[in-house]
Structure formats: structure tokens, C-alpha cells
């Protein structure tokens, strides 16, 4: 809770504050960003949690922060909410975090565990009672889909219901800035949709939402902009679309060729080589030679079983950067070469691919060794600096 001096608005959350200012990366419709962090550092003994994090988030924006465990996401949330002291500049609503009017802040901490023997209604009422001008408790419970379970003790609720109740406690004061640290952990798809709807409604009403999550699809759906954090610094910022375009790779077409079961492994390899040759000679698409989930078609024996026959993926070919309208070109090339196709799948890159790429876990497409090397070094200086993007984004 706040200190008395904090309550009077004179508390300080940062040990060094070099002033406010703006950051072009933040979508600030009215000038100054609602959330602003510049060169923020934080260490716990020998462990560095934040190593120069920069951030700017505009009013009404939903900002998603993603990154591996231990990347510093929660520490950054704590720096912004004034619950930990950091070195560097942190401004929230134009002032130091600890001096912000708490009536304007809503927080759902990570791993939040409120008193178990309060009902959901009592729990939300409890937090409502801490604010001067709180929302109607029943309306908040309805927003998170907990009306029918409002009188059950928190400890008897399911995991998803508990998380909804926790989200409700962060919404009860109708905050201007809402921090949600992994809000949908443990929530079923229906509950997640309810939370997503609540977040969208809050943002539509002008609330700035700062969201951390390990669910890439969730961040991709909700966030106007996404920051990817790695080893204490934000290595890329942009709209999901722009990040996917820049770091997510290309659409991939996966084709499995049909080989009679009686054929041996040599025939399967030969058929695959013929298929690759047909695609290369009749289309401009490139074959992905190595894959994280393709049992590596670069190895002609990949997919073979112990007795040397081909397995289910022995004739798989992954074709890189194939747009939806280019699928027929690939299939036509195979058909023209007399090769039958067993199955076809096509996938677009997602934020998950961005995550994997920028955290150094991406698969290695043909001829992109440089990008992998760069990804492997994004946390430090040098290549990471050139890769770190700041994008104003758009809603």
C-alpha cells in the first residue's frame, strides 16, 4: 500500500528521474505519453532485471509486453506502478509513479492471490471501498462474467473464475491506466473472451492498458502495439502487423507427397527430390531446407523409420514465402511433373514467430543465417540496436 507521504503525492518511486519528455514510439494522441520509461535499470544483487528499458504508451492504447520468463516484464510493471525503485526515467500520467493519484491506477499483479474466504462480491466490494469514487460492484462483476458466482467464496471458484474476480478488482475504480500482468493465466477460452471484451471496452473508453502475457495470440488480438522484452530491455516495439511483417518470416506452404507404401526409402527420397526440383524449376518460390517442426527435409533420410521405409514426414516439402494465391502454382508444378500430393497446409506468420525469432529460437530458413545470428545477439548492443524497431503503430 501507499505510504502516507505517497498519499499526499510527494512520494518518489524512482531513484533517478531525468525528467519527462516524449518518445516517438508511443502513440500519444495528446502529446505526452501516458506511460514513459527511458533507460530504466534495475538489479537484484548480481541479477540484472532491467538493463536500459525504453517505452512510451499513449492514451487509450493497449500495449502488450511479451518476452521469455525472467526477461524483466514484471519488474517493468512494478517500475511503472511505483512498487519498486529503479534507475532511469519513469513517468506515468506525466509524473513519477509513486506520486500518481492512485484513484487513476488499476493493477492486477502477477500471481495475485486475494483472501480466499471472501465471496467474489465481497472481494470486489473490499477494493471498491478503498477508492473515493468506485464503480458499482455488480456492474463490474457482470463485466467479467461473474454475476452468477458472485456469492461463492473466492477459494471455491475455479481457476478461471478466480482470475476474473482478480481482474474485477483492477477495474473497480474505473482506472485511467490499467496494468494487467498475465491476466488470463489459467482461464478457459470462454473466460478469456470475457476478459478480452473487458479490456477492449476499457480501451475504447479511453483507458490505457498495459498488458503482459505469454499468450501470443491474445496479445496479437488485443494489443495496438507490442513490445518484446529480452534480458531486461525492449528489443522490438510495433504493431503486431508491423512486427510480424518485419520479424515473423513468410507464409509457408507445406506439401506432403504421395508415395505408395511399398516403396522403399530411396524411392521416397527420389520422389521428394523430384518434387523439390519441380517447384524450383517452375516457380520462383524457395524451399525451406531446415525446420523446427518439419523433421528437417534438408536431411533426405528424415522421417525414415527404423527399417528404412519412409515415415509420415519423409516426403514433406516446405515452401517458403508462398502467398495464398501462389498455392496453385506450386501444386500445378508438382502435377506437371507427375507427382501426386497427399496433403497441403498453409500458414501465415504470427506473433509467436516474432517471439521465437527475437528470442533466438527461430528456425533457420534457407539463406538466412545472418538473421539467425542477429536474433541470437539481440539482447546486447550492436546488432540488436539495428534490429530494435520503434513503430508508432496504429489502432
Amino acid at each position: 500500500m501507499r505510504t502516507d507521504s505517497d498519499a499526499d503525492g510527494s512520494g518518489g518511486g524512482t531513484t533517478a528521474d531525468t525528467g519527462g519528455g516524449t518518445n516517438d514510439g508511443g502513440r500519444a494522441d495528446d502529446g505526452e505519453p501516458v506511460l514513459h520509461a527511458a533507460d530504466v535499470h534495475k538489479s537484484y544483487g548480481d541479477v540484472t532485471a532491467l538493463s536500459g528499458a525504453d517505452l512510451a504508451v499513449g492514451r487509450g492504447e493497449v500495449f502488450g509486453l511479451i518476452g521469455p520468463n525472467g526477461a524483466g516484464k514484471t519488474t517493468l510493471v512494478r517500475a511503472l506502478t511505483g512498487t519498486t525503485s529503479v534507475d532511469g526515467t519513469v513517468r506515468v500520467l506525466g509524473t513519477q509513479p509513486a506520486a500518481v493519484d492512485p484513484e487513476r491506477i488499476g493493477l492486477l499483479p502477477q500471481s495475485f492471490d486475494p483472501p480466499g474466504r471472501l465471496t467474489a462480491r465481497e472481494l470486489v466490494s473490499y477494493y471498491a471501498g478503498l477508492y473515493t469514487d468506485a464503480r458499482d460492484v455488480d456492474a463490474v462483476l457482470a463485466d467479467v462474467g461473474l454475476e452468477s458466482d458472485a456469492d461463492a467464496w473466492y477459494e471455491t471458484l475455479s481457476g478461471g473464475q478466480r482470475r476474473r474476480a482478480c481482474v474485477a478488482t483492477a477495474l473497480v475504480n474505473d482506472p485511467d491506466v490499467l496494468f494487467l500482468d498475465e491476466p488470463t493465466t489459467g482461464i478457459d477460452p470462454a473466460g478469456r473472451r470475457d476478459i478480452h471484451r473487458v479490456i477492449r471496452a476499457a480501451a475504447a473508453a479511453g483507458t490505457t492498458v498495459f498488458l503482459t502475457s505469454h499468450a501470443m495470440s491474445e496479445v496479437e488480438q488485443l494489443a495496438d502495439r507490442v513490445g518484446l522484452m529480452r534480458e531486461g530491455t525492449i528489443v522490438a516495439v510495433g504493431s503486431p502487423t508491423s512486427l510480424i511483417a518485419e520479424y515473423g518470416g513468410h507464409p509457408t506452404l507445406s506439401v506432403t507427397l504421395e508415395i505408395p507404401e511399398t516403396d522403399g526409402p530411396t524411392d521416397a527420397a527420389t520422389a521428394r527430390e523430384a518434387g523439390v526440383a519441380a517447384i524450383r524449376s517452375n516457380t520462383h518460390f524457395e524451399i525451406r531446407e531446415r525446420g523446427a517442426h518439419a523433421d528437417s527435409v534438408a536431411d533426405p533420410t528424415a522421417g525414415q523409420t527404423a527399417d528404412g521405409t519412409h515415415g509420415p514426414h519423409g516426403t514433406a516439402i516446405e515452401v517458403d514465402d508462398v502467398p495464398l494465391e501462389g498455392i496453385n502454382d506450386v501444386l500445378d508444378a508438382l502435377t506437371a511433373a507427375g507427382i501426386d500430393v497427399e496433403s497441403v497446409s498453409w500458414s501465415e506468420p504470427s506473433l509467436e514467430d516474432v517471439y521465437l525469432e527475437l528470442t533466438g529460437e527461430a528456425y533457420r530458413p534457407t539463406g538466412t543465417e545472418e538473421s539467425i545470428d542477429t536474433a541470437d545477439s539481440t539482447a546486447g548492443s550492436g546488432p540488436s540496436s539495428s534490429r530494435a524497431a520503434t513503430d508508432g503503430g496504429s489502432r
Partner: protein
Amino acid sequence: MSRLRRIRSETIAAARSFLRRRTAVFFTFFFPVILVVIFGALVRTQPTGGGLFAEPAGYYLPGYIGVVVLFTPLSRVGSEIARHRDGNRFEKLATTPLTRVEWLLAHTLVNVAIIGVASLLVFGLVLLVTDAAVRITPALAAVAAFVAVGVAAFCGVGAVLGSVADTQDGVIAASNTIALPLLFLSETFVPPSLLPGWFLPAVAVSPLTYFARGVRAITYDGGPWAGDLAVLAAIAVLTLAVGARLLPRTE
């Protein structure tokens, strides 16, 4: 009004949380009861032989009440802080208008109410199962003030322990380590005449000493008690201030 509203909300939530933990409620009241039964009825306290303690039964009334005044706030507030910290509740409260002083005040009020009831129970039980004679005077009402202020003092100490100890187990171990010596070395069950002279300054440091002296003056020997209440109140203000200051935020 906002401050009162916040304290009220925290108090109600804290009271509900405690009263719905039936095991905790049961042992909060059962612990002093078994103590009174064991020492007051079985071991007995008789000045003329036959009992373990040399003073008349009425002498020990402050000690029996002191057990709940001392033990319950230490363990309850300390454990509550550990629970809050484990559940990241302080991190959330740090972003609300509730101050640390308000939080501790609310939990102190809950403890005062609970321990007030427990003290009444102990008081009645001592009269019932021992031959303790209690002075019936208007000053008897001041015993309630001693209980309230004493509980507040130990809530402050409990807050310090809860903030310093990093686990619930640590809180319990620390509170037991502090409470047991205090209980027997604060003019509760052991008269100062039985202690070595060099140790008496340590007795004067214990908050429970002033509780025992004051309550004994009111209920047993009729001496002055206002000074003891004043000292106890000053200690309560000090421990609450230190306890509130040390309450965790995130780190």
C-alpha cells in the same frame, strides 16, 4: 471520510477473512482457556502451599489475559503480512489509496475486537475456575483500555516480525521466540522478587510489564495504573509506527 471509508473496508475484509477460518478462531479462544484450566484449576495457584505459584490466584489474572494480548496479535498480524506478501496483495494495495498506517490500523482494530472478546472469556473463566478475588471499582473499565492498547502494541511488533521474516514459518518461529520470554519475564506469572536484580531493567523494557502492572493495580492490589497505561500507549504508538513503516510493498 475517505480515510474512514478505507479503514472500514479493510477492517471488514480482515474480520471476515479471520472469522471464516474456523480453526484459527477456535484456537484463538481455546488456547487461553486451556491455559487457565491447566494452571488455574489443575496446577493451582495457592499462597499457602499445594500450588506451583506462590501468589494468590488474583495476582495471575493479568498473566492469563496477557497470554491472548501477547500471543494472538504477534502471530495473527505477522502471519497476515506473510500471507499478503505471498499473494502479492501488498503490491496491489500499493497502487490503491490505502496507506500502510491505515492497513495496520484496520488489522489492529480487528485484533482488538477479537482479543477483547477472548479477554472477557478469560476473565470470566478465571473467576469461575479459580478462587481469584477481583476488586470491583469503576477503574475496572480501564482494563478494556489496557487490553486495547496492549493489543495495539503487539500488533505493531507483529507487523515488524511479519515484515522482517520472509516466510509464514519464520513469522511463527520468531513470534514464539519473542513471546515466550516476554510472557514469563514481564511480571505476569513470575514476580520480580524471584528474578535476579540485574535482570530487572530488562523486565522494564517489556510492554507486557506495563500491561500486567496496570491490570493488576486495577483488579488486585489497587495501586496507581494511569502511568502504566501511558507508557503502554507510548509503546503502542512507537511499535505501530515502526511496523507500518516496515510493511512491504513489493520488495
